[in-house]
């Protein structure tokens, strides 16, 4: 069994120091690693990233993160990554990493993800350059995710870490008109093709916590404003008995 803790959408401000560290400290005992699903900062500044780095200093377990849209806003994303990497955080974008816990391996494939919409109501690589660029960004990141997930295909357990959502099921609660800005089915298609044990994302503050890809892989929206916990815990255990899914009904993609 591998114990995964996760949270997204922390939205650190320079003034928000000390809010989460007291809760995160207990993860050194209760989790094998901590995953951060983007929007780690409010405006994407180095100063905000330093606040997060200070909060994470209480942790002795591995930390893996992807960035979110907020983390790009100030144009300091490379420096934000550097601050986090200096603090011991592995930041993934179209990349993977692998860990070994008590003889079992865990592969993490990470990408920010992007928008574009979901099957039946999505953007198409057609028309103005601006529209094509928008759609092609998602295609590129989905291709990068494919490569990353392939790299950890032999791991005992595999988790996909994203910021944007790969399915519309965990967006339910958000206004329908903004779904194309909240995620893209392209990522779910890759995940269903290559397989994973769990997909984690944030971004949808008003969405739903639980969903499934069309192929049946569990997706969890761990956005802090939605879950309202300092983190969520997941135990990945192939030996555990099967439990029925109690989330929302599987959506139709026809």
């Amino acid at each position, binding site marked *: 069994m591998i*114990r995964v803790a996760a949270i997204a959408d922390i*939205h650190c*401000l320079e*003034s*928000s120091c000390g*809010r989460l560290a007291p*809760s995160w400290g207990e993860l050194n005992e*209760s989790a094998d690693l901590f995953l951060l699903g983007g929007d780690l900062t*409010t*405006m994407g*500044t180095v100063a905000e990233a330093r606040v997060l780095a200070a909060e994470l200093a209480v942790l002795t377990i591995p930390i893996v993160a992807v960035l979110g849209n*907020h983390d790009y*806003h100030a144009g300091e994303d490379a420096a934000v990554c550097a601050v986090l990497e200096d603090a011991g955080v592995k930041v993934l974008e179209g990349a993977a990493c692998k860990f070994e816990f008590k003889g079992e391996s865990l592969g993490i494939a990470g990408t920010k993800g992007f928008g574009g919409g979901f099957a039946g109501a999505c953007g198409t690589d057609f028309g103005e350059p601006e529209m094509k660029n928008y759609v092609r960004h998602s295609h590129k990141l989905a291709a990068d995710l494919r490569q990353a997930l392939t790299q950890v*295909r*032999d791991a005992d357990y*595999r988790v996909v870490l994203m910021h944007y959502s790969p399915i519309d099921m965990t967006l339910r609660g958000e206004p329908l008109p903004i779904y194309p800005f909240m995620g893209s089915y392209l990522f779910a298609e890759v995940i*269903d*093709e*290559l*397989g*994973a*044990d*769990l997909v984690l994302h944030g971004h949808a*503050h*008003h969405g739903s916590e639980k969903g499934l890809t069309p*192929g*049946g*892989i*569990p997706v*969890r929206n761990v956005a*802090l*404003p939605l879950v*309202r*916990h*300092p*983190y*969520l*815990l*997941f*135990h*990945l*255990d*192939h*030996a*555990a*008995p*099967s*439990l029925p899914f109690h989330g929302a009904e599987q959506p139709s993609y026809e």
Partner: protein
Amino acid sequence: MKEKPYVVSHVRAALAAAPEVGSLDIVVDVTGDTIYLSGVIDCESKRAAAGHVAGRAAPGLRVVNDLKVLQLTPVEPAEVLNDTSGGNR
């Protein structure tokens, strides 16, 4: 005064752009000469700043700041996930 939908959009844009707020999901409503802010926000400093930013973005309108600060709740027991990879390896 500008039409209500434009005021709402301008206030929402100002709330996103302001470094001390930086929020994309504050609910903004305008009724008569009053702007209502609602929803949940990370911390008290952002809540207070949102009121000031909204007022500056729509001069002449009164701001009612009904934003609630996010209250964290205790961590729940772990969710156990068994083999769901579907053999797609």
